[in-house]
């Protein structure tokens, strides 16, 4: 068909939020935040600043970019958010073994040979270590770098220190976190006349709240800055989930003291078409037939398209549970639709919310029973209560800076309302136990549908090859003609196996 498999598989991108909260005390506030910039392997896409009444400006110094928020008289609790999308790529460098250790140094990198406060490259202990490692007699750059790197990975223990550990302390203690290891590598390089620097950034892990940053190193080789990470063992290569935020021994954040400053990252993995990724890196596009591109022309967002294209898979999961396992759920495709609602808040909070909403709804429905209202107005009231509850949760979530909860407004409200109504009827007509059982089944099937629909491998396949939808149809045809027992029927008819009591 004129395109290769790999060309159609979408790539990963990340959505990143900087979340800041602080309380002003009627005094000036100054917050400076390092922000990622484009380089040979990372592209920053949609940057958005969301903040209170503070003045915002961008400060660029050297290769770094900082966001600066200023206010003269700031009082009460304030929030600042800075969100962006990034595409980051894996890169590997091959260092020719014949490059001499003493390279011709460009003027612009001379400063990366000079000692710094935390990188004491001229200290006698660094010199001594250098000699001990045999770096003095090493002629080639590659050998020198291998020696230094292996010293850092093999001879230095990893200890999760807080705060800044300098090169000298690391050398003495023979243990450090990422920062200390990296600073010692840089010090050893500089001591041997090799330009090097530490860089800082974030390891991108989806849906994790973690304010910590990561530090690794870059060494100047033949005009290129080549990455090395002694902590996670990347020699002359950098994995796709590393986001570089600043060059040099900078801080991610500097802020006015005593303002009860709180900081967190929110990270979410997203898929992006190869074409988009190529455009971001200004590369030529491949030959792939890309449905994303088609839908982009009519302003359908990629996220929406992803939901739509994954829904048949969710429905297939529902079919499996109904026809093969034999679990009763509320509505036929409700679990698949509820699973879509879990996307924005994650599985755990999705299930918590599901439980909260249906119990609240059933309670409201029980209270409304006394009013003896007619069906449709009663449904409208339950819908309204569900919405009020979601808004309250969102407000509460935003207040305590818990953005997961703040996203609940997208939870499928109408579906939850219908679920509540069905639960109420089952409780009335059968009993509470049956109602809870069906609710638990619904939660289980929703969770499974969610997991299937959110699996990146499946998403990549479905989006890269929408033809797979035909396979989904084939699977449904097979299941639709399957005449075997449902699993729950073995339990139902177990009497046939155990036999009648008197015949035993």
């Amino acid at each position, binding site marked *: 068909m004129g395109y290769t498999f790999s060309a159609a598989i979408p790539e990963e991108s990340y959505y990143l939020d900087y979340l800041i909260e602080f309380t002003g005390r009627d005094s000036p506030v100054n917050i400076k935040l390092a922000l990622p910039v484009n380089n040979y392997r990372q592209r920053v896409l949609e940057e958005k600043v969301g903040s209170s009444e503070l003045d915002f400006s961008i400060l660029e110094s050297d290769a770094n970019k900082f966001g600066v928020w200023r206010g003269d008289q700031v009082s009460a609790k304030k929030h600042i958010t800075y969100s962006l999308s990034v595409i980051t790529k894996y890169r590997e460098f091959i260092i020719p073994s014949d490059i001499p250790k003493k390279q011709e140094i460009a003027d612009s990198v001379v400063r990366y040979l000079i000692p710094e406060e935390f990188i004491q490259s001229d200290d006698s202990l660094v010199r001594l270590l250098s000699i001990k490692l045999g770096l003095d007699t090493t002629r080639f750059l590659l050998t020198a770098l291998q020696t230094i790197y292996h010293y850092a990975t093999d001879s230095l223990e990893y200890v999760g220190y807080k705060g800044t550990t300098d090169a000298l302390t690391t050398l003495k203690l023979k243990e450090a976190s990422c920062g200390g290891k990296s600073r010692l590598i840089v010090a050893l390089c500089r001591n041997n006349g090799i330009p090097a620097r530490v860089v800082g950034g974030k390891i991108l892990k989806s849906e994790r709240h973690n304010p910590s940053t990561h530090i690794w190193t870059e060494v100047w080789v033949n005009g290129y800055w080549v990455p090395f990470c002694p902590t996670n063992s990347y020699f002359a290569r950098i994995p796709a989930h590393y986001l570089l935020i600043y060059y040099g021994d900078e801080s991610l954040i500097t802020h006015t003291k005593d303002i009860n400053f709180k900081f967190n990252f929110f990270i979410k993995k997203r898929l992006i078409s190869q074409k988009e990724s190529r455009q971001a890196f200004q590369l030529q596009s491949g030959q792939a037939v890309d449905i994303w591109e088609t839908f982009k022309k009519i302003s359908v967002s990629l996220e929406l398209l992803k939901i739509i294209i994954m829904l048949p898979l969710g429905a297939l999961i529902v079919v499996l549970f109904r026809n093969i396992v034999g679990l009763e759920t509320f509505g036929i495709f409700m679990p698949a639709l509820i699973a879509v609602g879990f996307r924005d808040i994650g599985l755990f909070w999705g299930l918590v919310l599901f439980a909260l909403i249906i119990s609240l709804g059933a309670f409201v429905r029980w209270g409304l029973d006394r009013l*003896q209202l007619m069906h449709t107005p009663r449904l409208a009231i339950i819908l309204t209560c569900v919405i009020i509850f979601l808004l309250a949760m969102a407000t509460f979530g935003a207040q305590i800076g818990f953005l997961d909860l703040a996203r609940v407004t997208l939870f499928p409200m109408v579906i939850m309302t219908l679920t509540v109504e069905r639960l109420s009827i089952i409780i009335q007509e059968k009993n509470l136990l049956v109602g809870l059982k069906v609710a638990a089944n619904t939660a289980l099937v929703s969770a499974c549908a969610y997991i299937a629909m959110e699996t990146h491998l499946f998403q990549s396949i479905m989006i890269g090859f929408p033809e797979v939808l035909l396979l989904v149809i084939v699977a449904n045809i097979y299941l639709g003609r399957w*005449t075997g027992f449902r699993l729950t*029927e073995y339990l139902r008819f177990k*009497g*046939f*196996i*155990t036999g009648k009591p008197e015949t*035993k």
Partner: protein
Amino acid sequence: MRETVAAYKTGWMRLCSEVMGINRRNLELIYPHNPRQNFPNVDDKIICKRLLEQGGISVPKTLALFDTQLSLRQGKKLLENLEQFALKPNAGSGGLGVVLIKEKKSSHFLCHDGQLLSAEDLFWHIQNIIAGVFSLDNLTDVAIIEELLEPDEDLAKLSYKGVPDVRIIVLKDKPVMAMLRLPTSKSKGKANLHQGALGVGVDLETGVTTNSIYQGEFNTHHPDTGMGLIGVQIPEWDPILEQSSKIPALVGLNYVGIDFVIDRRSGLKVLEVNARPGLQIQLANFKGLRPVVQEAV
């Protein structure tokens, strides 16, 4: 020990070769034998009653129909004058939304399960039925008020409140399996197995009960009345079989479950015809449907 294992193995083989599961029932019985366009003939109780009556089958007398709030207001008086009746959603299934009123106590209505309903409660329930709360497709529905059947004395003795009925499964014109359904305190007087009624298997030839299940387990005596359930002769057995074999042709469906009630005064009546009869009847008879179905086809 070895005997038990051997017995379980035989049981397992029987289960796998004789018992009909939901998937197989749908694919091999319902879809080929019941044309979709004829489902309303039984799902809509009003149509069903008319078809059966035209074919000479006796059904409970309809006393009133409510399909809008307006007619409800007009019918309020009529309802208040009735001493006993059954209230049903026209498009309901599985006994959902059914209320049986045994007698009038001043301004209140006494249900078969002992619950007292005020006129307001009852009208609200009717409004819910009309709004489609109990209908299969949740669209608006009609509330049917019909005569309350009084169970035959022999069967009433076996049962705890409510109205026992006889379920016959018919394929084309051949009855293939039968079961007596007895309400219990657990089922709140309803004859639906899923709601906790007893299912008592009946020998097709003789109309004598053979085996009984309660909540999916075998038993021999009624949990509330203590009456023995095995070896009981069902009255009017021959007419039941005779009428059963006529009904599929009347409703245009070849695989149906028919619920008969033997009324104390007026005799045999068909309460309901079901196009998707349940499978628990197999356990009640300790017998799978597959061999008998094969014979009938």
